[in-house]
């Protein structure tokens, strides 16, 4: 069905379609609309889920953990400080191998209070064992939330998935949305280590170095296997519903000499910049990294790269740029832009490309470089 929705409402609609057993909810700007919309669905009887209005984000993830270990399907949503506050339980969810799905509406961390888009909140959780995906449109937020449940619950994965969407730029933007009739795309699942009263087990008991090491390795093995599960899920999704994304979305990439790489809405904005540059005779293309964990293996050889980070790791650099430096052995022009919701237009992005300085870093609007 064709409709119009915000990014937040699209996530809520997808959650409704997969019918989780338990939802834990705590408000935070700019995510609140997701848990409000789900509350409306549950109250109206359109969703047969248990809705737990918890008293903090730490408890939101703890409630999801407690529900998930019984074999229940669970969902929560958060943003920024909420994600940081639940950090301990974010680790717990992955370490306990629980296929919880969470929407994180990317927002800057304080101080000062800033409610606008930045990716630093989610990047601070990148080493927890969660799969992370970043979306760029309302439709993609919906589609990816559906896929997230299937990927998390796949027997080769059994890890939590975080669906990231940019605060306000996407969470509150109205775009067209084609909802689907889900069918068996997200089938019922079996949690192999679910609590079984007939076979009592200790969960999370004291664990020595050798066993702990083994458990960490198992998480990494599942993370590696998830690459094929993501690919297969996206292909099946494309076959059934006609929309295809991939681990990274290419735009006029094939013959491009210079490629803009970004995540989230900036990655979509880059496509317009590419068109502008092509009109000027620059053979530009773009690559929007969707899956950040597992991080994609990208063949970027023979191209000039302009990487835009809506984040920063102090004392180090742009997280996306340096992930690509490490993984793909490239020397990009690293642009730090859009922190705290700073406005970055397609014209600005075209400017980054025109003024690129390979191997250097520039802070948009700060260095006077652009």
């Amino acid at each position, binding site marked *: 069905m064709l409709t119009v929705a915000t990014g937040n409402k699209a996530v809520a609609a997808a959650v409704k379609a997969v019918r989780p057993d338990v939802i834990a909810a705590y408000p935070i700007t700019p995510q609140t609309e997701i848990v409000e919309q789900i509350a409306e669905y549950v109250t109206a009887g359109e969703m047969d889920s248990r809705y737990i209005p918890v008293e903090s984000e730490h408890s939101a993830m703890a409630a999801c953990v407690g529900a998930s270990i*019984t074999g229940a399907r669970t969902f929560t949503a958060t943003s920024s400080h909420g994600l940081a506050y639940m950090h301990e*339980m974010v680790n717990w969810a992955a370490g306990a191998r629980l296929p919880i799905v969470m929407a994180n509406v990317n927002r800057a961390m304080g101080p000062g209070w800033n409610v606008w888009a930045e990716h630093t909140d989610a990047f601070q959780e990148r080493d927890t064992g969660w799969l992370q995906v970043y979306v760029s449109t309302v439709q993609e937020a919906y589609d990816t939330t559906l896929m997230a449940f299937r990927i998390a619950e796949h027997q080769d994965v059994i890890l939590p998935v975080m669906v990231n969407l940019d605060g306000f730029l996407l969470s509150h933007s109205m775009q067209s949305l084609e909802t689907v009739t889900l069918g068996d795309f997200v089938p019922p699942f079996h949690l192999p280590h679910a609590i079984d009263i007939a076979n009592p087990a200790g969960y999370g008991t004291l664990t020595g170095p050798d066993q702990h090491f083994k458990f960490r390795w198992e998480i990494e093995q599942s993370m590696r296997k998830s690459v094929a599960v993501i690919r297969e899920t996206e292909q099946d999704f494309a076959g059934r519903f006609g929309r295809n994304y991939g681990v990274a979305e290419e735009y006029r990439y094939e013959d491009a000499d210079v490629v803009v790489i970004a995540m989230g809405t900036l990655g979509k904005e880059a496509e317009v910049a590419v068109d502008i540059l092509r009109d000027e005779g620059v053979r530009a293309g773009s690559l929007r990294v969707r899956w950040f964990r597992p991080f994609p293996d990208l063949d970027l050889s023979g191209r000039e790269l302009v990487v835009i980070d809506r984040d920063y790791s102090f004392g180090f650099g742009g997280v996306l740029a340096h992930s690509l430096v490490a993984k793909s052995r490239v020397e990009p022009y690293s642009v730090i832009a859009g922190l705290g919701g700073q406005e970055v237009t397609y014209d600005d992005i075209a400017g980054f490309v025109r003024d690129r300085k390979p191997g250097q870093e520039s802070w948009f609007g700060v260095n006077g470089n652009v």
Partner: protein
Amino acid sequence: MTEIPKEEYILKCTSACAGCPSSLILRYVLKAAGPDTVLVVPACCTSVIQGIYPNTAMNVPVYNVAFAAAAACASGMSEAFSKAGKKTNVIVYAGDGGTVDIGIQALSGAFERETDFLYICYDNEAYGNTGMQRSGSTPIGARTTTTPGGKIHAKKDIDAIVAAHHPTYLATACAAYPQDLFKKVQKALSLPGSKFLHVLAPCPPGWRFSSEKTVAMGKLAVRSGIWILFEREYGKVTINGPSKAALVKPAPLEEYLAGQGRFKGIDQNAIDALKSQAAARALHLQREAEGIC
């Protein structure tokens, strides 16, 4: 006499200290609860007592969870079991630090939501697992490793805090009175909604008394009136047998204090404070039991 089932749900391979009240309490809790039970355990002595992976000394499923998270985790579990049509008991078994300090936010939220579960705080009045640091439940005058001169602030009244959430059932118990404990667990699990059980756990290494005296120390706590056994069922207060007698003619508090190394060198002001707090508490509970307040 109450019939206590012969079934054991704590096997004979725990790593508890000699004379441990926590495992004694849990033994009776699980006998009362039976096999269709899941324990949710935040960081506390019981995290260690149950043994090291891949072994466990517990014969019911135990979900260990982060320090502050027990009540919230139990909320999710309780809802999930209920959604699946299961009547499994969800019991949080937490120490005093995990209850009155770091876990109090989750505890408050779960009780406000009338989560269907039993929350048991076994209270040894300090952070035992980390080697006896003060908690909000440590009484005035008690020496811990972080209050080497004796604690200067009063024990937090967690029962009053939980009572303010108007739970279905709230009771105190003591490791030295297993029949009373057993009956209270059974009663709590027979009732809907949120239930709270606060159990005094006299801890030999923490309180510094010899390990064969756990039960004697618990009895002295009740007889001196510093620990009062009572129940609050749908708000109605009943003071239980052993405490009823103790409140008429309490044993000297000095006897209870003198038996514990943690109170060595306690000054008279601290003793007076402990006595006046115990007396005020007894009076308040008696008036509540009589329906006066």
